[in-house]
């Protein structure tokens, strides 16, 4: 099997999320490229949650409809997913929780008494998932030593007990489908949030400030867990307003700082965003999108904040908005955002979503670039220091307190070069133009990072147009249909020239977006580019490859 899917399901509280990681790591060690889609409702116990792990011999970043191995911790998992089983699918289930006559006929079904086993070994009930994973390994003919390796890595608490329970599952199951290793190269598995966090650290992050909000809380948790190691100041304050304004303070004092949130929290940050633009204070904002409006679907995914991110905050000011498409890009663009923010003293927004942020992907280091960190321009100590000195690029030399001989004033009002408040017309025009001038230079700087990428059949007349987490599914669909794919990674400043080049020879543009209004389609049309068809999905779930192919073929 070179391209298959495993679904593990149960109630919230059964450790299904973690199981997805464990399974992904096991399959990853066999050389498979893996991708995990996690589906969970907004609650702590109960409901139905599942992890869908896709394994392939090629890079993968989307799920498929069909399930080849169903691991059921409860009855719901059978009932809700049996319609998706492929012809040769195998079911492994907890016979203590599932009624055997609900198992579909004609499928290989292996039952394990998970409750009995955990009770016998006095293990907590949550370890049923480890037992089931052990069973999965036997089913696939995976060496138990590999199972042990991953269990040890993933469970630092109760390691011995987990190993024991996993082995009980292994013993209880039988081999059904031998899975051969596809390559010697085994890639590590990361979520988009983790990769993004590591990119920020790599680019010199000193402080991370956030209020917990799905789907970016994992960034806060991860950075808090490594704060001591990397000498980071990780702060969880009283509100998103505090988050953004604290960050401006850190930036003023010279610390590279990032914040993270989702749509609702970003709403609260917008006054602070405008302030960062006016006061020229670099702050990176990670905006992990989830469906709204308002509270919406907190644990699902969307692409509805693009136009908001581009225009948020009163007034007009220079900003960078980027949207990584997969886990390697999450690592790359977070470095770029932090570096560029400091180079131009602007706020930047990294648009991600729950699919990318909380999805797990095989991480190919060779595709994940490091950027050269540039030091921002600093004061040369000559003359009187002026925080907003007007320059040819619009970027003023930086100084941070305490700087002997410098009076460093930042200001939310319109101000003169020294940072003192002004209200007259000539001073306003001068400062506005200084700040706008930065956009031109920003656009040149960003151009060096490949803001628009082309994949698939680069000569095809028909192209898919995408941004963010739809990158992978579009590439996969394009490959099957011989199409081109154009992915826009930088949304502000909009890379019009590169975009035009990417569309060279294209006669039909089909945009693929997880929103109802076609936000990228609207954006490109502002620059004179036409989108012929829009494929929209707005139920909070990402496209499966099957679904996208169907949409494209329908359009045909």
């Amino acid at each position, binding site marked *: 099997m070179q391209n298959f899917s495993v679904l593990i399901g149960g109630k919230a509280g059964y450790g299904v999320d973690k199981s997805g990681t464990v399974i992904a790591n096991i399959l990853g060690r066999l050389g498979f490229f893996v991708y995990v889609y996690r589906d969970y409702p907004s609650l702590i116990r109960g409901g139905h949650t599942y992890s869908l792990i896709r394994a392939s011999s090629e890079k993968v970043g989307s799920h498929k409809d069909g399930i080849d191995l169903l691991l059921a911790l409860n009855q719901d998992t059978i009932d809700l997913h049996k319609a998706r089983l492929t012809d040769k699918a195998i079911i492994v289930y907890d016979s203590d929780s599932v009624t055997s006559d609900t198992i579909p006929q004609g499928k290989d079904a292996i039952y394990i008494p998970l409750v009995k086993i955990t009770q016998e070994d006095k293990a907590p009930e949550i370890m049923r998932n480890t037992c089931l994973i052990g069973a999965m390994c036997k089913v696939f003919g995976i060496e138990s030593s590999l199972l042990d390796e991953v269990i040890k890595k993933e469970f630092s608490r109760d390691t011995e007990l987990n190993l024991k329970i996993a082995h009980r599952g292994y013993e209880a199951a039988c081999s059904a489908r031998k899975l051969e290793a596809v390559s010697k190269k085994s890639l590590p598995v990361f979520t988009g949030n983790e990769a993004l966090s*590591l990119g920020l650290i790599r680019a010199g992050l000193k402080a991370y400030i956030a209020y917990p909000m799905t789907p970016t809380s994992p960034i806060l948790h991860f950075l808090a867990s490594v704060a001591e190691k990397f000498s980071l*100041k990780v702060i969880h304050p*009283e509100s998103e307003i505090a988050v953004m304004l604290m960050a401006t*303070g850190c930036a003023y004092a010279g610390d590279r700082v990032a914040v993270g949130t989702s749509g609702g929290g970003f709403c609260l940050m917008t006054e602070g965003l405008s302030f960062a633009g006016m006061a020229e204070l670099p702050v990176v904002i990670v905006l992990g999108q989830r469906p709204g409006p308002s509270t919406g679907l907190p644990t699902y995914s969307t692409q509805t904040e693009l136009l908001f991110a581009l225009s948020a905050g009163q007034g007009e000011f220079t900003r960078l908005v980027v949207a990584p498409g997969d886990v390697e890009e999450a690592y790359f663009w977070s470095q770029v955002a932090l570096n560029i923010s400091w180079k131009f003293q602007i706020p930047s927004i990294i648009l991600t979503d729950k699919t990318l942020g909380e999805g797990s992907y095989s991480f190919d280091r060779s595709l994940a670039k490091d950027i050269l960190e540039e030091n921002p321009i600093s004061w040369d100590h000559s003359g009187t220091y002026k925080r907003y000195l007007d320059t040819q690029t619009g970027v003023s030399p930086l100084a941070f307190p305490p700087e002997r001989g410098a009076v460093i*004033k930042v200001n939310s009002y319109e101000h003169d070069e020294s940072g003192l408040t002004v209200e007259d017309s000539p001073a306003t025009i001068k400062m506005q133009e200084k700040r706008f001038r930065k956009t031109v230079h920003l656009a040149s700087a960003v151009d060096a990072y490949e803001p628009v990428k082309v994949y698939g059949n680069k000569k095809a007349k028909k192209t898919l147009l995408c941004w963010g987490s739809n990158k992978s599914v579009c590439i996969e669909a394009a490959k099957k249909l011989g199409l081109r794919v154009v992915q826009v990674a930088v949304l502000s400043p909009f890379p019009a020239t590169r975009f035009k080049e990417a569309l060279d020879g294209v006669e039909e543009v089909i945009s693929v977006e997880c929103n109802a209004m076609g936000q990228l389609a609207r954006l490109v049309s502002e620059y004179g580019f036409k989108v012929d068809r829009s494929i929209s999905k707005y139920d909070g779930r990402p496209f499966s490859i099957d679904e996208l192919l169907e949409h494209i073929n329908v359009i045909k």
Partner: protein
Amino acid sequence: MQDLNTTAINTWCPGCGNFAIHNSIKFVLTSLVGEGMPIENVVLISGIGCHAKIVDYVNTNSFYSLHGRVVPPATGIKISRPDLTVIGHSGDGDAYGEGIEHLIFAAKRNIDITMIIHNNRVYGLTTGQCTPTSPLGFKGRSTPAGNKELPINPLELMLASGATFIARGTSRAMEPMKKIFKEAILHKGFSIVDVLQVCVTYDNLYEYYDKHVYEMTDHDPSDYDKALARMREWDYNKDARIPLGVFYRKEEPTFEQNFINAPVSPDVRQSMVDKFLSEGA
């Protein structure tokens, strides 16, 4: 030391209580510099309101923030550079209205910053509305029939929230106010000074305060209960004697101390990130 005056034209109304605060803070900074504090270590932060213009008028590092948002950047600055002397100027509308959540948390954290509240009990810059410390029945632009809410007692609120230095002064009496400012700035922990400052344009309370204020003389500021009792002598509403001075003072661990750790060099950082990237999170 550099001249603490800027070139900005002063636009406070003649008679404004802000002048006294302005003069006092310059006096205190000069005094502290004379005792060895480098002037470049000082950062003044202000919100939005008449009070906030102070940063345009004092020639030090400054951060002219948003309305109600003095505490968060002050906190960020102090956490990033704990060696700086961070002084926030906020109005009563700014600090006790828009920014009250942050003020409570500053006290709760005991972050080592000083908050000077220019409490004139009116929104001056927006032409005369009532604030959280205006008395019941205050007739302002937004409450022409009289304010229907009782004021809060900010001193009590700060005490309950964990502030470790709480004082009140009046812009009328500069000498005691200068003394309090200096003590507040030197105090290691969260200091708040409520300055009963008069707005001559919208609510001239000079006479009222002259009649009611008195300097506390036999008060022990280390006693929580006694401090609370003194604070409750005047509820910002009824006619009563208004005690001035330091109500409460205590030494407790400060928030920014939790973030002082040895920096990691870029090379070490690089190699640790590489290790993560090859092994997985």
